[in-house]
């Protein structure tokens, strides 16, 4: 497996009236060709900002490196001039958003919206782009594609709209697809269809998928590798099975315990007490310490723990992980 996207020490800061707010802090991970990486965390953990920073769509100050490796070239997206970055957006890295209802332009037909990126990234003429748009709609499983090209977004159901968004994102055969909670706004049954579709398309095109979600059920469904974020930092990173079976960071275990299960006995859900800290006023030491049942005063709130390697693929940011494993 070869890495297609490499994020190295990515930081995003927002300069606000209240001072400098670090939203993302030293995030690193790699995404291989054909791999699905799930970026998991609560609201405000910095996962969306991370994805926007990769696309250079955030207004915050971004530092670090985002390296896009392709057969012919290796480019650091954060140092590219804007016109070159524009060429990459939508063509090499595409993105689908959470709300298909609002991410489509309400006054343009689907055909126009799918054809548009092909016309400027691939220099296709109108007729060729429309034919390709029809093929794409067909590919994402929209029936009667030819007629649907003339539909407006409001004439489609939520699932159809998200399929259309995926068609737009796939129009230029991107190497990386970033999906920012693409199933959150959909019904459960439709969610499953969309996940299935993404998996199928990935198998067919070999693109890498970066999946942003807070839904661990979805993660279990689709991910190869999981990066757990908390308060702007990566707190644990591992392949899917080890992470689910043997979470090392107390935050990850907490997340896993708070997932509702379909059992006949009604268990009490164990929610993680408290809230995500305000990024402008992060606690000293481990950001999770104030909510952590294993926190020890004097150790957990002293310094920010390093991201340590538990084994070759499993990284964890907790000073006590070895003790907790032993116990």
């Amino acid at each position, binding site marked *: 497996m070869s890495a297609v996207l490499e994020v190295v020490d990515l930081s995003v800061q927002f300069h606000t009236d209240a001072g400098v707010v670090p939203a993302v802090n030293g995030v690193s991970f790699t995404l291989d060709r054909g791999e699905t990486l799930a970026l998991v965390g609560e609201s405000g953990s910095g996962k969306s900002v991370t994805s926007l920073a990769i696309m250079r769509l955030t207004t915050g100050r971004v530092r670090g490196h985002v390296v896009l490796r392709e057969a012919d070239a290796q480019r650091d997206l954060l140092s590219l001039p804007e016109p070159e970055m524009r060429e990459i957006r939508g063509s090499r890295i595409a*993105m689908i958003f959470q709300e298909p209802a609002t991410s*489509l332009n309400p006054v343009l037909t689907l055909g126009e919206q799918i054809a548009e990126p092909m016309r400027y990234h691939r220099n296709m003429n109108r007729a060729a782009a429309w*034919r390709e748009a029809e093929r794409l709609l067909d590919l994402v499983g929209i029936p009667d594609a030819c007629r649907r090209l003339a539909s407006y977004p409001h004439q489609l159901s939520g699932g159809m709209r998200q399929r259309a968004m995926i068609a737009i994102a796939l129009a230029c055969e991107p190497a990386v697809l970033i999906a920012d909670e693409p199933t959150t706004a959909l019904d459960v049954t439709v969610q499953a269809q969309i996940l299935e579709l993404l998996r199928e398309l990935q198998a067919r095109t070999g693109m890498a998928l970066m999946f942003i979600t807070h839904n661990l059920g979805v993660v279990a469904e689709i991910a190869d590798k999981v990066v757990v974020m908390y308060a702007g930092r990566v707190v644990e990173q591992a392949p899917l099975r080890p992470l689910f079976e043997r979470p090392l960071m107390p935050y990850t275990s907490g997340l896993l315990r708070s997932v509702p299960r379909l059992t006949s006995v009604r268990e009490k859900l164990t929610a993680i007490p408290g809230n995500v800290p305000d990024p402008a006023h992060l606690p000293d030491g481990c950001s999770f310490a104030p909510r952590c049942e294993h926190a020890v005063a004097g150790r957990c709130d002293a310094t920010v723990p390093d991201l340590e390697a538990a084994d070759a693929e499993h990284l964890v940011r907790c000073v006590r992980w070895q003790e907790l494993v032993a116990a």
Partner: protein
Amino acid sequence: MTLASASTEIAVPRRGGRGARRFARHRLALVGSCTILFLIIASALGPYINPYDDLHIDILHRFQPPFVGLHLLGTDQLGRDMLARLEMAGRISLTVGFSAMALSIAFGTIIGVVAGFYGGILGAVLMRLVDAVLCFPSIFLLLALAAFVEPTLLSITVIIAATAWMEVARLVEAQIRALRDRDFAVAAVALGASDRMIMFRELIPNAIAAVIVAATLNVARAILLESYISFLGYGIQPPIPSWGNMLNNAQEYLVSAPWLAIIPGAAITLAVTGFNFLGDGLRDALDPRLDVR
């Protein structure tokens, strides 16, 4: 076989089939557009049919009331045929109205889009410029400009446009500023669209309803403004008629020959209300979200 051949010839669909249906549902809009069409055709073709010349003076037949003699709409204080004058005036007034509208809409939209999209210092400077121009009462601005320029059809059109673009700029700026941060605009950036493409392909179609309404109001307004300056002597110069200066001529005879005022007044009213109704209809026709099915 049949399936394959069907899919190879997908027609790129024409825009607006459904729009035309939405428009046709709007009764008043149909009435409005028919009125305007009638005014345009009458002004364009009328002078070829009417036996009388609009500049022909016939002192013997002054102040003929309408619908009685040979002159269908009567004659004015110099015995000129009112119908001929009305038709020629329509050419001038409608031309000024449309051209001034097109000019002011184009300029106002560009300023508004740029200011709304980029915001920041550029946006602030542009919008303060708009505010500054808005501060002048438009009639004085109009007169001040007209006093320096020789009144011709072109110069009057430009001058009227120069006093009418600011509202459009404000309107468009507000719309674009609100639209710029909507998800679909962000999605367009994420798809690699350039600024120009986002402004003109993604955002303006969403603001077009408001622009169209402003445009139709601007035609009406331009016709009125043209009559203001004609009234004050800086507009279309007699003996060439415009609806405005016909009204101006009529004021001395308001009691003795009221039709001299009523006829051009009715023409202006028809044109103005016609454009307003048309604007309503176009707004609905251009908004696909109103397509109830």
